[in-house]
């Protein structure tokens, strides 16, 4: 391994090293503040290393640290740094061990970083599993609450099955393509193209899509999402909703950009059906929810469905649109779950819609953040979500994906209803409860950054738009 390769790996090494330091710290003496500081420092050093490097550097044929990987790495680091801040506030009153939470968070981030720079089945699979195995424990982390445990189990079992699907699909693709390099697999798929000679390859590809569909909670692989979102503690749900989805989607996009979909129109059709199903089923289920976290789980199914538009249109414009949308989506996700975190405590999750009644009067700051997040998710202009949806729509219509574009508009129409309902509830004059505890500083900081991003990117998206315009693959 050459020194240039080691240099390029620095962002990953930083997170890994932080993890080891934190582990050593736990071995010597437990101190949650130390672990927390190491975690944040790890993220910060990793982020700095991202900005210090440029160009594209391949590492052993498994990873490529290119602008695309760096951009999504930055999104992951920022999101999980936010989650760490939220978790630090949330777990203040938790009397069991807290240090492992941050270690697992670091491991999860490392998995995400591997995923976004993976160009080989081995790194793809290892990154995904590192992410998932860390998430199993994170979701079930709060040992004093049964629901959290249930969330862990409900994620673990289907995720393990999905892993098996992924591996089997990869094996079939490897068998057909003779290589595990993503680009090589793509080329071979384009060659195999016509059935039935390509049957093994196509079957493998479909199985990989099933596994990715599970991780992204696309319909019909979405059913675990609501229970897991609801059961897990709010900051972890934020991480599940943002980091795991961004990382997996970034990889999905990279994988698909190497495959000529015209060669296998069938896969394009499958993805179209999955996308439309996700948009409609997600919105429909979200309509019925009273629990905010469940509602967000279903709505995220719809959002990932929207992201199939840039995936299917591909190219530089597609990458830019997807990147913008994911940034907007992550910022809004952190904002929304962050507010729930700030309202909840480790003993009691305040995620019922009724908890929000009159929030605007009780906690104006939290309410403002929550409303900004909701409006962004709904795609109301002057928020990041609107710009994102606008990009998606231009890309989709530009590639004549009419059915998908129509489904997107319809689904966002339905979604407006459940998002705005939650906005309206906050202005209800009924005073549900007296003022709760003050928002802790760490969580407040994360929320402030999130709202600045959500609103700022909606009003002035120029810099980000320019930055992502060059995300070539």
């Amino acid at each position, binding site marked *: 391994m050459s020194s240039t390769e080691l240099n390029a790996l620095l962002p990953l090494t930083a997170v890994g090293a932080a993890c080891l330091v934190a582990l050593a710290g736990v071995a010597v003496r437990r101190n949650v503040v130390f672990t927390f500081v190491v975690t944040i420092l790890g993220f910060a050093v990793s982020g700095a290393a991202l900005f210090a490097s440029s160009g594209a550097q391949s590492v052993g044929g498994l990873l490529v640290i290119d602008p695309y990987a760096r951009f999504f790495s930055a999104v992951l680091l920022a999101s999980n740094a936010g989650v760490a801040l939220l978790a630090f506030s949330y777990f203040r009153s938790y009397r069991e*061990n807290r240090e492992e939470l941050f*270690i697992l968070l670091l*491991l999860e981030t*490392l998995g995400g970083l591997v995923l976004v720079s993976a160009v080989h089945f081995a790194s793809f699979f290892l990154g995904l599993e*590192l992410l998932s195995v860390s998430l199993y424990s994170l979701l*079930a982390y709060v*040992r004093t609450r049964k629901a959290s445990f249930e969330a862990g189990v409900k994620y673990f079992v289907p995720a393990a099955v999905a892993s098996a699907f992924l591996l089997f699909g990869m094996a079939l693709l490897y068998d057909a393509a003779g290589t595990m390099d993503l680009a090589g697999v793509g080329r071979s798929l384009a060659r195999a193209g016509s059935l039935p000679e390509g049957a093994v390859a196509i079957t493998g590809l479909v199985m990989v899509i099933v596994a990715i569909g599970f991780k992204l909670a696309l319909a019909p692989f979405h059913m675990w999402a609501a229970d897991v979102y609801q059961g897990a503690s709010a900051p972890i749900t934020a991480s599940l909703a943002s980091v795991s989805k961004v990382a997996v989607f970034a990889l999905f996009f990279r994988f698909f950009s190497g495959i000529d979909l015209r060669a296998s129109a069938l896969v394009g059709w499958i993805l179209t059906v999955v996308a439309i199903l996700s948009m409609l089923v997600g919105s429909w289920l979200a309509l019925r929810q009273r629990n905010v976290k469940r509602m967000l789980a279903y709505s995220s199914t719809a959002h990932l469905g929207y992201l199939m538009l840039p995936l299917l249109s591909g190219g530089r414009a597609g990458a830019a649109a997807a990147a913008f949308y994911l940034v907007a989506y992550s910022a809004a996700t952190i904002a929304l779950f962050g507010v729930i975190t700030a309202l909840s405590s480790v003993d009691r999750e305040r995620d019922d819609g009724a908890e929000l009644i009159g929030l605007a009067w009780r906690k104006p700051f939290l309410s403002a953040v929550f409303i900004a997040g909701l409006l962004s998710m709904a795609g109301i202009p002057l928020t990041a979500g609107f710009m994102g949806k606008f990009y998606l729509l231009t890309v989709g219509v530009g590639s004549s994906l009419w059915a998908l574009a129509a489904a997107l508009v319809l689904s966002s129409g339905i979604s407006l209803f459940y998002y705005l309902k939650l906005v309206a509830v906050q202005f209800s004059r009924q005073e549900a409860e007296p003022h709760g505890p003050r928002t802790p500083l760490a969580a407040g900081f994360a929320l402030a950054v999130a709202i600045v991003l959500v609103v700022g990117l909606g009003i002035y998206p120029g810099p980000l738009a320019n930055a992502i315009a060059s995300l070539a693959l």
Partner: protein
Amino acid sequence: MVTVLFFVAGALAIVSTALAVTRPNAVHALLYLIVAILSLSVLFYLLGAPFAAALEVIVYAGAIVVLLLFVVMMLNLSHQSVAEERTLLKPSIWIGPGILAAVLLGALIALLSNGAPAGGDSIEGPAAVGTALFRPYLVGVEIASFLLISGVVGAYHLGRRLKEPRP
């Protein structure tokens, strides 16, 4: 001979797996699983992957299944422990796995006595695998080690007893 052995091992793997996922008793199921793993290991060997064959037995049968077995025993899933201990010695439990294992053993003996080479034209021995593992896949090995850390940390946190019992 090798071909026959291949099909015997393949059939054994399928049959014992089918039994493993259908048996009502967890201990039985795990015994069948061990037979399936041994058969798979033979398949690996025949496919020209002796290193993988060895690992399959050592890690799967030797570690993972034993861990499962340990948990099954610890939770004492069959409730009446004494009665269970007694039934453990009944032939109805070990006869199935025993027969299957015996068939496998016979096939193995036939294979070894024949001195037949493993697989066909391509044997990727431990050296080749090791070189691949620590040259191009070095980063992968590092990530895999973090995967194990994650598993350990998670298992430690989740498996531990609480300081205060759940309310």
